[in-house]
């Protein structure tokens, strides 16, 4: 093992050793893991990958750990659903849902990044893990830390959905609800991270953690028979996932696991928090922070750390972006449920809603393959749809009551 050369600043290119570092001390740019692709190319073939268990570690040579993976051993390798009914509803020919609403163990794509983060945190010798989260990451860190017998401190905005709070507390972390929005939670956490010797998965071990998102992309390519789709629509909060899916495609090409790609990346956000979409539409290099106002709380990051790189991935690939209203989010959640039987959270409503708009406006052609990234589960954000899906029909336990009330 050991395919990682070190860390490198994404901005100025300065090199750093593979340690607990995350910011370039010269220009303050984020650090990224650098791999030895020549060696990976020799070690990692389609056959090797296919012979391994169906979890995200089947791509372990492309992940930044030195030893054996220790966490998330059942995470990843979620279904790529061929969505025929939804395709018909949207008037497109070839449509897939990459369904991380059923990722193990906490029903979101964050199980991937946490699997990598905790494995790496143990290599670094940490005993306590922590995170700033809009909910899904909170669930995953608390769950996987419990299984790994690590202590955990989870920081969230105080107004999160009940499902995300209960889905964190059940694992008995120290859960800290901060009176403020995510960006304020994040600011506080960066102060906490510099004072306490904890592995803050999305702060001080972020370069390693973020690499876990690539497995979502690798799986799409493997599940499509080692080929890349033409269009991928991705929800954006901090902007890391879309950046890493784009990286996954380029890495597979680099090591020869796919021959070529003509994939375009599309960013999806809620209108009430669309700094990345705005920058793409305005063709601007500057990501202007916003104060989020949306029911898609898991995407409510007004000052996205990877916003610039997310916009760059979209631009480089020739893609585009769109944002949706709260009403459109709910409609899209219902559409996915009622066509494909998949209940996604608000973020999934954002992604499908944006995909629908991009198809209707002609940005995404109807006769090319499209993947929609569903990254979280609807059971966690029930408040968003509770009053908008009708009610159960109440009857007496008699056949006549059934016939009168239901069939009448």
């Amino acid at each position: 093992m050991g395919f990682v050369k070190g860390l490198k600043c994404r901005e100025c290119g300065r090199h750093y050793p593979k340690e607990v570092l995350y910011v370039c001390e010269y220009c303050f740019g984020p650090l990224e893991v650098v791999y030895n692709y020549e060696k990976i190319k020799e070690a990692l073939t389609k056959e090797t990958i296919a012979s391994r268990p169906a979890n995200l570690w089947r791509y372990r040579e492309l992940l930044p750990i030195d030893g054996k993976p220790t966490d998330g051993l059942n995470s990843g390798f979620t279904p790529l659903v061929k969505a025929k009914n939804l395709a018909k509803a949207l008037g497109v020919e070839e449509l897939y849902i990459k369904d991380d609403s059923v990722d193990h163990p906490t029903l979101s794509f964050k199980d991937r990044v946490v699997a990598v983060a905790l494995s790496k945190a143990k290599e670094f010798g940490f005993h306590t893990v922590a995170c700033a989260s809009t909910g899904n990451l909170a669930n995953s860190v608390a769950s996987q830390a419990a299984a790994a017998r690590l202590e955990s401190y989870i920081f969230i905005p105080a107004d999160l959905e009940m499902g995300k709070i209960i889905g964190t507390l059940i694992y008995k972390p120290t859960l800290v609800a901060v009176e403020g929005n995510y960006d304020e939670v994040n600011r506080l956490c960066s102060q906490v991270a510099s004072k306490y010797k904890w592995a803050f998965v999305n702060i001080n071990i972020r370069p390693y953690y973020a690499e876990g998102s690539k497995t979502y992309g690798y799986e799409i390519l493997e599940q499509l028979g080692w080929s890349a789709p033409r269009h991928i629509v991705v929800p954006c909060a901090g902007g890391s996932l879309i950046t890493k899916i784009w990286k996954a495609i380029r890495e597979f090409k680099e090591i020869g696991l796919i021959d070529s790609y003509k994939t375009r990346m599309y960013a999806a956000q809620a209108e009430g928090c669309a700094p990345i979409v705005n920058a793409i539409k305005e063709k601007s290099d500057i990501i202007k922070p916003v104060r989020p106002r949306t029911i898609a709380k898991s995407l409510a990051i007004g000052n996205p750390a990877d916003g610039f790189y997310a916009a760059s991935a979209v631009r480089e690939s020739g893609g585009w972006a769109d944002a949706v209203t709260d009403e459109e989010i709910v409609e899209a959640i219902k559409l996915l449920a009622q066509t494909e039987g998949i209940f996604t959270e608000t973020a999934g409503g954002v992604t499908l809603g944006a995909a629908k708009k991009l198809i209707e406006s002609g940005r995404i052609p109807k006769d090319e393959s499209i993947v929609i990234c569903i990254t979280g589960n609807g059971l966690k954000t029930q408040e968003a749809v509770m009053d908008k899906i009708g009610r159960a029909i109440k009857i007496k336990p008699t056949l006549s009551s059934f016939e009168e009330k239901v069939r009448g």
Partner: protein
Amino acid sequence: MAIKVRIPTPLQKLTKDKDVVECDAKDIKGLIEELGKAFPGLGERICDESGKIRRFLNIYVNDEDIRFLEMDKTALKNGDEVSIIPAIAGG
């Protein structure tokens, strides 16, 4: 009364360990030039080779992010407080 500039910890080596320095300038661009003259090496840490403010350094004038104002053309007057703060990773 001049403009007060708060210097982040990683750059204080260049300002002789001072966390606040004073400066006179009409706008942010001018302020960065003045800082560069007063503290050799500081200018290139704040701006890249093409003179643009580095993407992961945020600058605030009286607590307002200059991305909401007029970027490096944001005007300054005596008594203003400018903070230079590295962007926060996360999300």
